[in-house]
């Protein structure tokens, strides 16, 4: 095969920026005053203020985890970041009421159109707050709650307070502490017992401002036997300076419930994406993370499932695409805490140019349990000679009644494959795209239709010009 020159990435889908006047701005840097400002603007209770301040202390005390993680996180300058920016705290219920400059952004990203087509509810977050939030009426009648984090804690404390910060404690890691200190936006969702939401709920996260940090907080509770699919997308314009996105997402699936959480992350290549995502699955419940990482400068994200009840199931399907200057450090954490729990991790990564993709995983069966099973498969595809991939799993098994298997492989697109396709008249670039699409195809099929089409198109774009 011929040598592969640099690729020009097409990433212009989200790369645009509108000048926006913000009514509320907590300024640059982070201290107790920043937190007071956020709490006052949002009109939050005192317990939230205390919760945030305690988290700030933990964040400040915790060192960067560079003993295992990329040194690049030392380049995040917390004093240069704006922690809260909004035009107001109440999201509009109809697109007509959304301010024009914000609406224009979401229209360009096609959100209202998608909502009409196939979504049960949409929340659109612009920097710190949701500017639009709406859900189909019949869902509200069934008792489904789909609101922002501020509203969730204020209007429905009896539901959300019980699990808020319980799946991911503030001190879990430096970035969960940071999020706990300054969180704003995100979704709080409650699905009542037995309610099966057929169409997905969607959140769209948009960073518009420069030097901005987005810290949304999501908590989804599926009560006994309930089912829900949640999708999130994210984009930002490309600035010269770094932007920080640090979300915390907690899922709770009570007995027999099912939650599917789908992410298509396409941040611009100046965004540090440090996200903590974890689900708690009770008896016979199922939590499935479908995670696709295409954008950002450095992503560190390891969606996890704690299988607390017997028969619970956890699954992570992950696709990562790392381009020049990108490091996709993704993986999964599966904690088996009850008998007969099963988990499955399938991870596929593609490294292009000098891109680096890393799989980091934890599978733990820490006590003597019966009938636990885990299957992990990590496959990495390297496109160019200077592409890089790493795999760092950690597996702990106690006792003799559980089974764990882990497999990983690294390969490149075979010269035979490309030759075969070119023989049949395909240009080399198309052949490459086909081969790469073939590599991820069985995973992409797990995504909802609309997403899988978009993903395939994104991968086509990314691969364009990767061979010459």
């Amino acid at each position, binding site marked *: 095969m011929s040598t592969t020159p640099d690729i020009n990435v097409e990433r212009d889908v989200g790369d645009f920026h509108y000048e926006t006047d913000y009514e509320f701005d907590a300024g640059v840097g982070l201290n107790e005053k920043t937190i007071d400002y956020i709490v006052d603007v949002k009109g939050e209770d005192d317990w939230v203020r205390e919760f945030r301040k305690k988290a700030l202390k933990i964040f400040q005390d915790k060192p960067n985890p560079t003993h295992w993680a990329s040194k690049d996180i030392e380049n995040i300058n917390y004093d240069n970041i704006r922690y809260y920016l909004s035009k107001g705290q109440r999201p509009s219920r109809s697109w007509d009421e959304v301010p024009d400059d914000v609406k224009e952004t979401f229209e360009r990203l096609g959100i209202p159109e998608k909502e009409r087509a196939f979504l049960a509810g949409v929340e659109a977050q612009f920097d710190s707050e949701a500017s639009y939030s709406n859900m189909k009426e019949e869902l509200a009648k069934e008792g489904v709650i789909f609101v922002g984090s501020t509203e969730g804690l204020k209007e429905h404390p009896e539901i959300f307070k019980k699990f808020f910060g319980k799946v991911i404690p503030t001190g879990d890691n430096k970035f969960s502490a940071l999020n706990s200190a300054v969180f704003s936006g995100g979704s709080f969702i409650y699905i009542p017992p037995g309610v099966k939401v057929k169409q997905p709920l969607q959140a769209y996260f948009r960073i518009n401002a420069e030097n901005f940090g987005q810290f949304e907080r999501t908590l989804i509770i599926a009560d006994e036997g309930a089912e829900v699919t949640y999708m999130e997308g994210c984009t930002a314009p490309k600035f010269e300076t770094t932007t920080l996105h640090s979300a915390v997402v907690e899922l709770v699936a009570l007995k027999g419930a099912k939650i599917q959480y789908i992410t298509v992350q396409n941040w611009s290549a100046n965004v540090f994406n440090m996200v903590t995502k974890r689900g708690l699955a009770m008896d016979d419940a199922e939590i499935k993370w479908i995670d696709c990482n295409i954008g950002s400068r450095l992503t560190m994200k390891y969606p996890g499932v704690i299988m607390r009840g017997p028969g619970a199931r956890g699954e992570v399907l992950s696709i990562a695409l790392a381009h020049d200057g990108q490091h996709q450090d993704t993986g999964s954490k599966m904690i088996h805490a009850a008998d007969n729990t099963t988990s499955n991790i399938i991870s596929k990564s593609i490294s292009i140019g000098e891109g680096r993709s890393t799989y980091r995983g934890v599978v733990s069966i820490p006590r003597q349990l019966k009938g636990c099973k885990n299957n992990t498969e990590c496959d990495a595809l390297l496109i160019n000679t200077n592409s890089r991939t790493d795999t760092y*799993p*950690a597996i*702990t*098994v106690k006792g003799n009644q559980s*089974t*764990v*298997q882990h497999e990983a492989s690294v390969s490149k697109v075979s010269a035979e494959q490309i030759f075969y396709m070119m023989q049949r008249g395909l240009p080399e670039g198309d052949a490459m795209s086909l081969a790469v699409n073939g590599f991820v195809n069985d995973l992409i099929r797990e995504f909802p239709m609309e997403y899988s089409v978009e993903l395939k198109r994104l991968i086509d774009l990314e691969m364009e010009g990767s061979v010459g």
Partner: protein
Amino acid sequence: MSDTLVLSHPSLDDPKVFSVHQEQTGIEEEWFKSAQQEAWDRYTELPYPVRTNEKWRFANVKHFTNTGSYRTAAQADEDTAHLVEESHRLDKVAGRIILADDALAAPVELDEDLRKKGVIFMPLFDAIRKHPELVREYFMKQSPELGSEKFEALHLALLRNGVFLYVPDNLEIEAPFMAYNWAVADKAALFPHTLFVTGTNAKASLVEFQEAAHKETEHFIIANAHLYAGDGAKPSHTIVQNWNAKTLSFQLNTNNAQRDTNAKSTLINVGSSHARQEVHGKIFGSGSNVEMYALNVPTGSQEIDQRTLQTHIAPNSRSDLLFKNALIDQSRTIFSGLIIVEENAQQTDAYQTNNNLMLSPDAEANSLPGLEIKANDVKCSHGATTGNMDDAEMFYFLARGIPKKKAIELMVFGYFEEIIGKLDNEQLANYVRELVQHKFTD
């Protein structure tokens, strides 16, 4: 313990331990003395490992930080003749060195014909005196780089003998060379060192037995073994670690392969209360095949903590690692392996497999199989499995009237045959089978 013993065999936390050691070794070569001095300084400066260090993840570090009461150079007062008697594990050998508490216990045996052909097989300190250039070229030139730097420094500072084997170019030797290391005196800190060099197109195998004279004595052992395979060489190195159950042991090894080599190293682990082992296979040349195997049968509260690296520096080579554990009682294992393929090492084939057979509800296996790939035209894979006996296989045994206990034993044998079959000496293979069986009957 008498006062004179305390004076001449200071404990590791005695400030005079190093100066007493230097007086006792009697070695005069300046380069070696200063290497030991520098190592001692390094040892005193380096911190003890902590568990937050990735290289010590899952490890019980406290066992290795409490070693001050062990005595260096604690030489056996007792007669070691019976140990020499016992040092006959294999019949047909090319040579034999027996060390008890790091001191020569019997005259070195070496086939006369091989001696004439230029084979050097002697205690390390004799080699330092007689072949200084050759020893210097290889001695401590490579390090496992896997976390035990402090203990490696202590090993170098206080080592007082070892085994040196040099096989000259184009010489092929079938019979194995034998090295026996016996731990005898209670509370002895020992630092066995092995340097095994094979010249261009040479072929040889070295088998080491590590054993204790008594069951109840306590030992702290930091062993090092370095294998250097010249172009086209075919060395095989086997260590049968069978220290007693009260021994804390380190085994810090490197396997260094030049072009077109076939290098094999095998670790058989049955002994020690806690064994920390580091093996770094480095491939400097193309066309090489480096194999690393381990068979581990921990019982009781034994812990075996193994860290491995396979570093591919040159293109077009192959490495294969297979570490198999069968865990009994409350035993614990850690396998942390990493394959590194450097930028220039295109066309690398590298494999790494860790299997854990869980035979008790209280056993715990930790597995960290890692890859770091910086070249794209490679075939790399790793696999780790942890599980119990296959139910269908067990049913097959039971249906034929074989009792469950016997069935487990037979299945463990089948499981380990994959490693035992790699040993090229049938007598050694049988001996290892016996050792495994003993672990079940004890």
